[in-house]
């Protein structure tokens, strides 16, 4: 099977280049991550992140044949050859397939991604009906892989100002939580032309999310809340 892999080592390479490599022993059922690990056995300089190997830790989002996804749950059989493997777009490349996600994490931290409760907490658990809890489904499962934000043109153009789909999805995760008491502050922090409103519903995020989450929908829900809030 043929691969074309983005290579760049700032210590030795003047510029990034695409390297053509071939892997002869392909097992049925192999995922892209398995292939990359095999390739690394032949050339240990090839650098990429991975950990869980089962789509839950979010380490290995890459741009695969032009589309962002997790290498560990992308079957080779689903990919056309030569398989083009690139780092996540729009992020500074540290080396090969490893990008600097500092900006991505900064946006995440900025939305205050934690439950805020002002009242004294009860002795037992907060009560939450199954229906209230269901509102968090499709939100809390985010693994912060970065596939969505780095597929979003609005994020490429305003990386410092636009929070990006992942951070906004998390913002809505807390807005939607019946236990959270910081709705007004959360909404206020998203006002203005950039942080939230740069989303032009291009929908790339929902299309690439490997967990099947829909940040565009969450952004829409926040906009609705904002409107209600202003009125």
């Amino acid at each position, binding site marked *: 099977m043929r691969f074309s892999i983005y290579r760049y080592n700032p210590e030795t390479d003047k510029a990034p280049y695409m390297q053509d490599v071939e892997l002869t022993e392909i097992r049925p059922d192999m995922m892209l991550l398995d292939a990359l690990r095999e390739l690394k056995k032949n050339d240990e300089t090839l650098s990429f*992140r991975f950990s869980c*190997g*089962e*789509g839950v830790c979010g380490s290995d989002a890459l741009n695969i044949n032009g589309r962002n996804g997790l290498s560990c749950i992308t079957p080779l059989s689903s990919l056309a050859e030569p398989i083009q493997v690139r780092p996540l777009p729009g992020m500074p490349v540290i080396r090969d397939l490893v990008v600097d996600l500092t900006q991505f994490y900064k946006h995440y931290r900025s939305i205050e991604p*934690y439950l805020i409760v002002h009242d004294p907490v009860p002795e037992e658990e907060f009560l*939450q009906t*199954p229906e209230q809890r269901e509102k968090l489904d499709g939100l809390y499962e985010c693994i912060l892989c970065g596939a969505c934000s780095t597929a979003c043109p609005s994020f490429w153009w305003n990386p410092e100002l636009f929070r990006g789909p992942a951070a906004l999805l998390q913002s809505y995760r807390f807005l939607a939580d019946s236990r959270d008491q910081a709705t007004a502050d959360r909404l206020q922090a998203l006002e203005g032309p950039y942080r939230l409103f740069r989303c032009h519903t291009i929908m790339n995020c929902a299309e690439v999310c490997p967990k099947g989450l829909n940040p565009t929908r969450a952004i829409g829900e926040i906009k609705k809340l904002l409107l209600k809030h202003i009125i």
Partner: protein
Amino acid sequence: MSHANYGIAKHRFDTLVIGAGGGGLRAALQLAQAEATVAVVSKVFPTRSHTVAAQGGMNAALANVSPDNWHWHMYDTVKGSDYLGDQDAIEYMCRAASRLVIELEHMGVPFSRLDNGKIYQRPFGGQSQNFGGAQAARTCAAADRTGHAILHSLYQQNIRAKTHFFDEFFAVDLLLDDEGYVLGALVLEIETGEPLIIEAKTTLLATGGVGQLFRTNTNAAINTGDGMGMALRAGIPVQDMEFFQFHPTGIAGKGMLMSEGARGEGGYLINKDGERFMERYAPQAKDLASRDVVSRAIATEVREGRGCGEKGDYVLLKLDHLDPEVIMKRLPGIRDMAMTFAHVDPIDKPIPVFPTAHYTMGGIPTDRFGQVVVPVNQGAAEPVPGLYAVGECACVSVHGANRLGGNSLLDIVVFGRAAGNKITEYLGESRYHRPMGRQYVDKALGHLARWDKRGKGESVGALRDALQRTMEHYCGVFRIENVLAEGLAKVLEIEKRLEDVRLQDHSKIFNTARIEALELENLVSLAVATVTSALARQESRGAHTRIDYPDRDDERWLKHTLFYREGRRLDYKPVTTKPLTVDSFPPKPRVY
């Protein structure tokens, strides 16, 4: 940051926490609340830690679903441990459980809910009411993504507490002075390849387990036992390494975990004849017997020719009789994974499963305050000053010879918190950092420099493959003297070969090959510890099954193993059978 020490950057904190899984993050939070300065070092971004993969849930006798109390939980844990667990620590953990679950809920963990708004609990293996009676439902769950939910909430709370994170920094070695005080660690910034010193009055190891010892495992690639390896190099023993849990239901041939929650929700195992074979092995608890029991049963079915598939090398986990709604609501992650990796939708078809290396019961010996304790001159165990350990890298021991499902997420938060408190106490008495002598750092730097050697040699990847195959073949579910002895010879040979391994990649920036080499060193030293301990223990207890010694032997072996790196020395220490307040649970035959 200063450069006082010969060109290496140096940071100074009250406490250094190595590991940002549930154990490390819970401790960091406790310390932040005590206003200690804390550095959390992790080789991956915190939410990529392996706690994220935990599925089924966390045990606490909330009694939201079935009548329950902490004392029953304690009984189940002692019995589950095959009486090797320390009963003081077990009592402490089970008593604290409810409070800690509630605390996590208050932090924002999105637990699944019951109709009355309380936390959802599901039945898990080895749980009973009233000391061995009817099945209990004690496992608090956020669907089948409980670890994800807990880890993210703990990380989020640490963001709120402004904890200082060193993300993608690899801890290489502990730094100790001549009196044996731990002064911090030498760590490597992965992005730049630069070593740096983190000086701390107290150091907490929370580096997780060592599932990568075995070829087929449920663990993440990062679970290479680094903390245990660091402890061994610092002269500290590891305890009970022969007890490695094989989870009954990993996807056959691949290893991804199909949570015990699947059986908790009503799934069961069948052999090629469609027989629900657990009824024969555990008439009362059936598919929800302890993990060691179920894993042995599956392995026996396969050995005796009742396995499924062309090669007869797996059994089936059947869920297709359940309401699809239950699968989609309670087990969505399992379903996803089964579809991705086994190509079956459990709503329609059973999943091929086989016992898979899963959990490290052994680890760095600690007391129930998270202090690392080592026997001094054949005498009682004493704390190693400045060093603490919690979570899967530690051995308190609350899991003994076999961990109950749902007790590890509990373990990490209970003892993460306890260690945070103990450290706070110590910090109150120790106002100043002890001097960091150059010689302490040089040793660690020398270790790191070993990987600068150039030339031809075996590769890290090839040797790691050889190690994992050896462990699987010679030290798996069933063990026997001559095979173990051969296995020991093999891992010692691998240890020798390690000296000839050379890196081809000597660059600095994000050199993952170097990281994998450092991890391999840890794996090899733990393989030696595991096989040596397993060969010595001439009995069957919990996860350690010796075909040549099929029975538990309390007379000779009701004791913890300690393995020292130097001279591969073994030592033993007694099990604490006395709980804190209640009566002891004396060893009894273990039936489910």
